[in-house]
């Protein structure tokens, strides 16, 4: 980085600024740069180039503690450890140090963060589903929160567009509530999964169980290699076989010649010029030198993640916006959502003992929502619905590690051989947008750069708890109908705290009315239209499907609108 901090206003001026380099930021960077805008991406963490994945090719014996990290290290990631998988030695370096990045929990909130180029696009679960008309209409039909300002038809071509670039493998199923997309060939189910699929369809009037739709390539695509079936995606993929900013959108942005990326750049606030009636740029803190620098642009895309984008808006106080940029409605920071999960069931099969699988599939099965789709499936106890993710495998030594009863020669032989087949499903449920589920600025607790921090006050309510009962009971019902043995339900509601699913959404919702929402139908701040927010913050409701594909589509759509408006002289 050539002495950029010493540069004058002119050198610090771009056509567009993108805050964040994760799934949404990467897309904004690609789209804006490819459309000819000189674009600056500001990333608060370190740079990670495609291939900078230090653990990607390591075997278990090459980690000092094998699957463990030392207690002293774990103490620095107490919150990041709450998922149960993030702080594995293969991936702990992708998650923040909680002691250096504090936040406050009036109620438990598990805020998982990766501060590096690519953000959580390197770490995501890669499940990629479209929202449907059912999702976009739900708030209006039920009188919940506010109406989405868009419908499925508005976003459908943008799903097509991002799927074609990202590469999503999946099967076409012709379900109105889980629309098909532009798919690469689907992955294969294993023996037990095929059997369970058939039995569930037989027992429940054709209820579908499908292979997961996943951003892993089942064949070479746009210069990236196909999945090698190692199932070590969270470490970063040297083959570029799953979608991340690092291997997909950022290289495309660089290829345009219009993209500049500045790591270690913490955006402290968006600068609003009252006399011009518009945002003029951003103020950053260099994470390493603590220098404060301003950058200017015609349009600003905030893609820092739901909580971080809203933090920036809340912290962008001015005479015009004393409660945060674009917060005339008072809704900024409210309507925080996540999916609730960690509820389902598992069972053992006594069949297929002479069958096995080859390869570690980085994907599972999906049972799409089947509740509250129409009058016939209407539930009296709760609104909305849930889907299941899961799969079958054969038990192995790792699944017996806590088993106490056995030891000795037979125990060892049993663990060397593949164990019985096991099929398990967990449910991902929609959470309603509640005004009082919120994040606020905490000026009493400051981070190491002197910035305010975030306080969370967010919890599940009656609708989610009622839904969970069905999520558990329906799982048991399906697994028993599928002929599985020892079907055991689980419901770890404690560890399904908001945030734990890492699908945080809301806090700067889209809406039709500036009095009750922060963003318009193009993801523009109603009252500062050259500021766009296209990450999870924009979501008006959260469906029950994984949201990242929707952030991609909304971002590409908003970029198209921004460039079109710039050309018309409207921004």
């Amino acid at each position, binding site marked *: 980085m050539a002495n950029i901090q010493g540069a004058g206003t002119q050198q610090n001026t771009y056509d567009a600024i993108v805050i964040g380099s994760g799934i949404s930021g990467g897309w904004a960077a690609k789209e804006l740069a490819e459309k000819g805008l000189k674009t600056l991406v500001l990333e608060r963490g370190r740079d990670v180039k495609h291939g900078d994945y230090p653990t990607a090719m390591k*075997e278990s014996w090459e980690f000092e503690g*094998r699957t463990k990290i030392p207690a002293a290290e774990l103490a620095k990631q107490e919150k990041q450890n709450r998922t149960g998988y993030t702080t594995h030695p293969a991936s702990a370096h992708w998650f923040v140090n909680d002691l250096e990045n504090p936040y406050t929990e009036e109620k438990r909130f598990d805020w998982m963060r990766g501060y590096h180029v690519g953000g959580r696009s390197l770490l995501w679960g890669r499940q990629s589903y479209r929202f449907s008309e059912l999702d976009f209409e739900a708030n209006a039909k039920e009188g919940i929160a506010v109406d989405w300002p868009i419908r499925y038809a508005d976003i459908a071509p943008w799903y097509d567009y991002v799927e074609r670039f990202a590469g999503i493998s999946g099967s076409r199923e012709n379900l109105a509530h889980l629309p098909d997309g532009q798919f690469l060939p689907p992955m294969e189910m294993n023996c037990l999964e095929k059997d369970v699929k058939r039995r569930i369809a037989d027992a429940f009037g054709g209820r579908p169980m499908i292979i997961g739709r996943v951003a892993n390539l089942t064949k070479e695509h746009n210069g990236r290699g196909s*999945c090698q079936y*190692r199932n070590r995606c969270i470490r970063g993929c040297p083959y570029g076989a799953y979608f991340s900013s690092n291997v997909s959108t950022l290289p495309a942005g660089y290829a345009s010649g219009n993209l500049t990326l500045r790591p270690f750049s913490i955006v402290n606030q968006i600068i609003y010029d009252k006399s011009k009636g518009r945002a003029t740029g951003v103020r950053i803190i260099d994470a390493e030198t603590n220098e404060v620098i301003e950058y200017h642009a015609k349009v600003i895309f905030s893609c820092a993640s739901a909580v971080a984008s809203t933090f920036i808006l809340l912290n962008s106080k001015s005479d015009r916006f004393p409660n945060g940029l674009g917060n005339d409605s008072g809704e900024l920071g409210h309507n925080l959502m996540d999916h609730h999960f960690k509820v389902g069931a598992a069972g053992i099969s006594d069949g*297929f003992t002479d069958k096995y*699988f080859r*390869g570690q599939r980085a994907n599972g099965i999906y049972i799409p929502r089947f509740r509250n789709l129409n009058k016939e499936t209407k539930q009296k106890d709760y609104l909305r619905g849930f889907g299941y993710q899961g799969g079958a495998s054969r038990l*192995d030594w790792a699944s017996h590690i806590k088993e106490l009863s056995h030891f000795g020669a037979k125990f060892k032989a049993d663990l060397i051989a593949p164990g019985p087949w096991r099929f398990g499903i967990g449910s991902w449920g929609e959470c309603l947008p509640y005004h009082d589920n919120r994040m606020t600025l905490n000026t009493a607790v400051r981070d190491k750069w002197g910035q305010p921090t975030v306080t969370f006050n967010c919890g599940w309510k009656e609708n989610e708890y009622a839904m969970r009962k069905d999520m558990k009971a329906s799982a048991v019902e399906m697994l028993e109908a599928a002929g599985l043995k020892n079907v055991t339900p689980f419901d770890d509601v404690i560890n399904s705290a908001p945030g734990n699913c890492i699908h945080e959404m809301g806090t700067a919702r889209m809406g039709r009315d500036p009095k009750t929402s922060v963003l318009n139908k193009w993801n523009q701040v109603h009252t500062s239209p050259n500021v766009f927010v296209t990450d999870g913050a924009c979501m008006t409701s959260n469906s029950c499907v994984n949201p990242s594909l929707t952030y991609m589509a909304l971002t590409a759509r908003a970029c198209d609108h921004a460039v079109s408006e710039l050309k018309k002289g409207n921004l």
Partner: protein
Amino acid sequence: MSRREAIKRAAMLIGVAFSPSLVESALQAQTAAGGAGAAKPVYLSAKQFEAVSAIADRILPRTDTPGALDVGVPAFADHMYGKFLSAADQKVVVAGLADLETASGAAHGRGFAALTSAQQDALLTKVAEASKAKERTFFHQIKELVVLGYFSSEKIGKTVLHYDPVPGRFDGCIPIAEVGNVAWTK
């Protein structure tokens, strides 16, 4: 599957044609590398380490495949104890080992490591039974370290389990005979 079969198969997987004599020397090297006597504890006392070694040997004894002592499990457990466990877990392990020695002395007048295999198994069974319905007891922790240390070791991963680090494909349903009824290395 025998250890010999495993080594042959591993050789085939990496595309190297091993002669029978090479297989034999690999087996001998394995045996020579094993044995608790080869390692000294860094964090545990000599007496504690003897007991840990004896426990590891009873949980995963040498059969036609290597045992815990053949792949350095006691040294792994010592390292994990000293550098990875929390202070609370360390206390649980130390207390558990002390209790085991007390029980061993009371029943047989000897330390745990000096008991016969049958006596060790009987004592460990009692400890395991007493640990049921509890969490993170001494036996949970020691057994986890032994099983983890064994199955995540290079020797077991490459020569006993089915090692295929870059499968390149996924087949959902194959006859198990194709992989010799052996689990994949994780």
